[in-house]
């Protein structure tokens, strides 16, 4: 607020109610504290100061599903756990969102073929909003997934009658521009050629 403080006339803002509600919702997502496997470590890193999920207003990890509206399924979901995951999902108040974090929750991952006890993707158990692949995904990837959830909330029209569901358009992205040597397509080809040359094994 420091930037704006004392700079405004005595005034009011006009917005539509839906937008205001969506804005409030997307800026304070409360994820549920629950990690199933190694992805949970990365989720913790995302919550820690270096990556700081609090910047997106989603830092209040709740220890109960009844106070949470975002479920980050971080880690392998085995069949014994899947029932519990479903139960936790059912206990969350609406509106609720699910991020499937990691290869295992996206589709079974390394356990796809021989994992007799692993659910082949958490989307077989609960409806998933955003998939974050990776094994485990970097914290940046999880933050990107969170931003996609926010985009989704941004486009929610649950007050208006008879509105068709719109596909969310990414409002913010976490993508970074290409490095200067790759920005120009011609230069990029040259750069790749050079790279190939460099990668060739040295003849003895």
């Amino acid at each position, binding site marked *: 607020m420091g930037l704006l403080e004392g700079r405004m006339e005595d005034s009011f803002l006009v917005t539509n109610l839906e937008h205001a509600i969506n804005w409030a919702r997307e800026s304070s997502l409360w994820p549920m504290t629950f990690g199933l496997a190694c992805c949970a470590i990365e989720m913790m890193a995302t919550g820690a100061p270096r990556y700081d999920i609090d910047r997106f207003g989603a830092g209040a990890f709740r220890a109960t599903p009844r106070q949470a509206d975002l479920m980050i399924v971080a880690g392998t979901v085995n069949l014994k756990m899947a*029932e519990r995951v479903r139960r936790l999902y059912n206990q969350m108040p609406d509106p609720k969102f699910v991020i499937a974090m990691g290869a295992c929750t996206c589709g079974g991952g390394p356990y796809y073929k021989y994992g007799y006890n692993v659910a082949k993707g958490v989307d077989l158990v609960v409806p998933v909003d955003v998939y974050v692949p990776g094994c485990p995904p970097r914290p940046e990837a999880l933050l990107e997934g969170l931003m996609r959830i926010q985009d989704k909330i941004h486009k929610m029209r649950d007050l208006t009658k008879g509105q068709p569901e719109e596909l969310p358009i990414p409002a913010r992205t976490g993508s970074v521009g290409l490095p200067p040597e790759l920005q120009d397509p011609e230069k990029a080809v040259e750069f790749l050629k050079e790279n190939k040359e460099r990668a060739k094994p040295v003849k003895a």
Partner: protein
Amino acid sequence: MTPAEIANLLEEQFGPAVTGKKTDALDPFVTVEPARLVEVCTFLRDDPRLKFALLNDITGVDYLETDSKKVAKAGFEPHLEVLYHISSFAFPGRRFTVKLVLPRWKDNVAGQLPEVPSVSGVWRTADWHEREVYDLVGVFFTGHPNLVRILLNDDWVGHPLRKDYEFPLEYHGIRCR
């Protein structure tokens, strides 16, 4: 006492109950008649020359070649093995293995688990290890105090580490394959 000496001692003590031995392997072992397992294990634990007070692990192995083209080359008949890895506190560094060879199914009736006397009365550690072997490989330990599944759900069907195990299509409404 070298593994060979231990094996000889066991042969001397139990005669025909010891059906085989290999003492130059990385894990030297004797093969024992399942019916006399508890006797042998009690001897291994209590004899002052042996003092194997610790059961490190119990392993169940399913020997079955499921590929019909490779059966001839496999070099073994289908069977199960249960191995007891034991070591000694009184003689540090001394390790030994007791091996049981079992049929895959009792009386060759599919679904009838082969039976082994439980050694949970000899080593308390065996309790959970035997439950795990029962759970995943499907060996029934007679005389076990509480032989229920330890890792999988109680209502699970089959024993997943058997080579001919087939995944369930669905489990509690969740598609499995």
